[in-house]
């Protein structure tokens, strides 16, 4: 491994392999930092997500078939089939899922992201985010709230009822809001929220409040049905995490523009399906490099413990991949309390991430770390070389379907995924191994 790292390491000669990788990585950093994600619409998934047929179900993480899916993801699939009316009972839903009639695909393969189980079914309304700098689109569902929710594998009547309410009441209001505001600039909300103690992954309260601040006057002043406005305002007002999915879509729109740069060793996606953690690397296209997922370290709700926890799950690590989330924990020290940490621990963790990133994002600055920009563009080579594994803030789902969220904590992306990606880079770009074979 040390030899592969050396072979692929930066070189001051621009014509050499290391020189090409270095400039490709700078290109990726520029693309990531110059992205400008803006929400421009709210539409049903089937109308806007590419290749979304009436029997497609998208899930979080690298590709996985029904028979290998973890509990919460199966629960969420069952819930989605009930929600779509494709099954009338959990049993029936499960039979349908096994039958092979459902096409499962990773959200990431369709420019989409979903938290936890990450299920997107055809009728679900999704945020449409455009990266104005590059023109690419990204999608995510709206966040359902905390506790027993579909994304954590719960599928009881209340869960389905809430999803229906979101489709019929919340989505039209959001569509109206987006139209009235002529798009919502996500980058500036994220930048402000980072200065207000959010890391925009596990802590989204400031970002959600900023969103609410934009939304409330418009909705109150709208000609929408007043009971609908009341419901929506009350939902947003009671939901500290609403912005998460917007942050995720913003990060997805940001990173997709940095994909497929030849020679580039920058990570463009980190995602987990509850069984495996997978990463994608710019210079290697849409290949996944996977490793077994581990159980996050964290705090559990009363009555639950690590033995109830499902291994790491969800596409939300897209935030860390884009340089926020746990990567900017130094600016959101409240979050390290999940693992009993202190503000100093938070700063230390963030400082570590500079060791594995290409550069900084000067749009996202950390006030209590002398306004340094967020550590941005994870370099596979640096991860392997330093052994510093990217850190992720995450929710913890119950391993059995139907329970939902049991805690939250932090987790590291396993090293094996990066080693596999690094080998693949060497095979693709240094097949002859000119020096040090």
């Amino acid at each position, binding site marked *: 491994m040390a030899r592969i790292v050396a072979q692929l390491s930066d070189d001051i000669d621009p014509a050499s392999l290391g020189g090409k990788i270095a400039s490709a990585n700078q290109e990726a950093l520029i693309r990531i930092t110059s992205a400008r994600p803006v929400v421009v619409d709210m539409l049903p998934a089937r109308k806007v997500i590419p290749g979304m047929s009436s029997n497609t179900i998208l899930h979080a993480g690298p590709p996985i078939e029904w028979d290998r899916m973890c509990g919460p993801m199966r629960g969420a699939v069952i819930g989605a089939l009930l929600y779509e009316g494709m099954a009338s009972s959990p049993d029936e839903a499960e039979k349908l899922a096994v039958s092979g009639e459902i096409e499962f695909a990773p959200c990431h393969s369709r420019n989409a992201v979903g938290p936890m189980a990450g299920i997107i079914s055809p009728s679900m309304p999704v945020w449409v985010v455009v990266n104005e700098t590059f023109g690419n689109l990204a999608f995510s569902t709206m966040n359902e709230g905390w506790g027993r929710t579909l994304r954590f594998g719960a599928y009881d009547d209340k869960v389905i009822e809430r999803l229906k309410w979101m489709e019929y009441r919340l989505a039209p209001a959001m569509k109206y809001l987006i139209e009235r505001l002529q798009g919502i600039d996500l*980058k500036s909300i994220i*930048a402000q929220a980072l200065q207000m103690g959010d890391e925009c992954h596990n802590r989204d309260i400031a970002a959600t409040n900023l969103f609410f601040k934009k939304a409330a006057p418009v909705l109150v002043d709208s000609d929408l049905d007043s009971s609908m406005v009341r419901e929506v305002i009350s939902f947003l007002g009671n939901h500290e995490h609403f912005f998460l999915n917007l942050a995720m879509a913003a990060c997805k729109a940001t990173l997709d523009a940095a994909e497929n740069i030849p020679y580039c060793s920058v990570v463009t996606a980190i995602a987990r399906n509850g069984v495996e953690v997978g990463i994608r690397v710019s210079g290697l296209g849409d290949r996944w490099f996977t490793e077994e997922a581990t159980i996050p370290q964290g705090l559990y709700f009363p009555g639950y413990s690590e033995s109830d926890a499902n291994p790491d799950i969800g596409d939300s690590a897209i935030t860390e991949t884009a340089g926020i989330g746990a990567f900017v924990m130094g600016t959101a020290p409240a979050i390290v309390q999940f693992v009993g940490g202190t503000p100093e621990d938070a700063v230390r963790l963030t400082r570590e991430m500079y060791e594995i990133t290409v550069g900084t994002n000067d749009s996202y600055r950390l006030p209590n770390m002398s306004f340094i920009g967020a550590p941005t563009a994870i370099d596979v080579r640096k991860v392997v070389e330093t052994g*510093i594994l990217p850190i992720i803030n995450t929710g913890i789902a119950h391993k059995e379907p139907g329970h939902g969220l049991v805690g939250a904590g932090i987790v590291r992306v396993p090293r094996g995924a990066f080693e596999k990606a690094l080998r693949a880079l060497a095979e693709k770009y240094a097949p002859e191994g000119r020096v040090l074979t």
Partner: protein
Amino acid sequence: MIIKALVKPAYYQDSVALMWISRRVHACAGVHKAAVMMATPQNKDIMREAGLFTEAVARAGPGDMVIVVSAETEEAAAGALREAEQWLAKPVGEEKNSTTSSQYRHLAAGIRSLPGADVAVISVPGVYAAAESLKALKNGLHVFLFSDNVSLEDEIQLKRLAHQRGLLLMGPDCGTAFIGGVPLGFANAVRRGGIGIVGASGTGMQEIMCLVDRWGGGISHAFGTGSRDLSMGVGGITTLDALEILARDEQTKVVVLVSKPPAPQVAEKILRRVGGMGKPVVLCLLGNNNTTSRRGVYMARTLEDAARLAVVLERGEAPGTDTVEGSVPTLSLDITGGYLRGLFSGGTLAEEALLILRACIGRVYSNLPEGETLADPNFSKENTIVDMGSDEFTVGRPHPMIDFSYRLERFQREVADPRVSVILMDVVLGFGSHPDPAAELVPPISEAIKEARRTNRDLNIVLNVVGTDADPQDYTAQVTRLKTAGALVAPTNAQAALMAAKLLSSGRGKLELEVNKQ
């Protein structure tokens, strides 16, 4: 009056940070007013009232940042905008590391924190050393490769790459260098001057550098090459590149090359090169008795010989044919006393002593390739010299230049052998070595001498101390303490070996007189 505006789309910044930058911009020469703000409706009002409202400001949205200046001239306005951009690009303070010492997990971070650095010192387990060296070379750094256990294939590839890029790869297993006054690895605090050294031998270079210093000369640079550099496989890549550097270096007046005899084809290349240096060259190829008739090339038979020749040449004087004391005698001495045991920490010093002693007293056992091989290097036989810095002694243990414990254990065993009458040792001072060798050596030496006197046994402990008074351990202070303990301290390694030989032939009394003169 000129008003200029710059819009940075979707560039949120906290207002306090922006006010701070506004103040900086306002302070620029020729600027009347400046605003660096997010283009929110409220801020637009402020700019309008300040007379800083332009079309570009009007078009900007609340997520966009605007920089507007009013200035006397076009240039002043443009300059202020540039200034603002610079402040925006740079965090207010680069993030400072709160820990007192800086630790970096990879080379790139180290390079970032130390711009202008041009040498990487690499000391990691051998399996990683080649990879780290490659990284350093790719970053344009010369490499001082302290690690050993680097394969010959890797050494060749790395040295070829270094050569292609005009870089020097010193090593692997390179113990010593002194570059532009900076000591690397095991090295001594020596005066700077006109003598440049290239060597495959660490302690040999240290001995020469210290003697040069003691005799009034000075060192420009000293480059270690690694012990295999003059082998057929490597072909002297580093030696030739280092000679090239010294040939071009204006400060260097005299060049010394110290090594074991090279492979014949490589020797030819080296001789061709040193013949055309345009500066006098002293060749010290230990164990090589050939001479060369090339002009400006001087053959030294010992390290001391090399140092003295270099000093004379540095002064611009012509060395006489035999100005050198302590040269290798050709006459065999009659051995009357007991056995000699040499316990060395420096490989080259051990080798030189072995060669001298063999010429004087015949057969000497050792773990060096030149000696009669010991069946087990842990057990001496008759006259023996061991290099205790060689791999069989250092695996899993610190080097004897740093840790005296294993050498002292062996010392006790040798002293306990009644047939032993001379113990010969080197003491290497300088950076990287033990901070106070006398503290380790004085008690066992004085104890052994006392015990020998009590039993009327002829036991002599002969030392050579490599070092200078400027070294952290202080040469004179160390020598004084060691002499007080009863050791005989010779001025050079070669003379220590000769003294040992004479002691073996003549006994102690006669020699003490000679030693006391020095």
